């Protein structure tokens, strides 16, 4: 199944109105930056929340330090608002 699993947590889930979605990708994959463009196109204004200050992205449950990571089908990408544990 040639898709990414994209997950939204906490306030971002509320903003996007969903907790996850499948994003089909071509076999060779795409950069995280390209996924952002794709999500903006798909969700319009609501996707602005993904670029809010403090929002971080995890690729396969590890924080991405830039928009450079290359994503391939099967990867799990999560958008995480600032954490408030403890």
């Amino acid at each position, binding site marked *: 199944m040639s898709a990414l699993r994209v*997950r939204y*947590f*906490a*306030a971002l889930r*509320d903003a996007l109105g969903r907790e996850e979605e499948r994003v089909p990708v071509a076999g060779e994959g795409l950069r995280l930056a390209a996924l952002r463009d794709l999500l903006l196109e798909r969700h319009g204004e609501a996707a602005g929340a993904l670029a809010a200050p*403090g929002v971080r992205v*995890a690729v396969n*449950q*590890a924080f991405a330090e830039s928009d450079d990571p290359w994503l391939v089908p099967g990867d799990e990408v*999560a958008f*995480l*608002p*600032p*954490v*408030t*544990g*403890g």
Partner: protein
Amino acid sequence: MRPEIRVGPEDFDLGEAYAALRRRAPAAGAVAAFVGCVRDLSDGGAVDVLELEHYPGMTERSVAEVADEAARRWPLDALTVVHRVGRLGPAEQIVLVLAASAHREAAFDAARFVMDYLKTRAVFWKRERGPAGERWIESRASDHAAAAAWRDSAEDAPER
């Protein structure tokens, strides 16, 4: 020393967790502990329910990383971190930290470090519900300052 980590909806018992820690570190001269509970009043007003969301898998790893960092910085004999998730009512327990060391300075420092880092690095999100509705809690500047203070002091961290 392998930290004991637990993330889940179950409540914890400080006395039992302390007894278990002492079994792992019977010779430790000092144990510092912390328990965080739901307050009935927050910046946003009265609180009826606190919901703790997490990211299964990534959350456990983020807590383990905080604990491992504490174990690198201080000579600990044992370390326990328990963090609850799910719906909690006022006064319910949220988080437990227990740190055992030969001396009190390391035990206190490590317990406080773990709490400061959990606040800013562990993958949890809190939502409050009260008479005024519900809202996601925002991260506190003072928590980030507390965590940053440890980072700044990394070079002269105690090496006892």
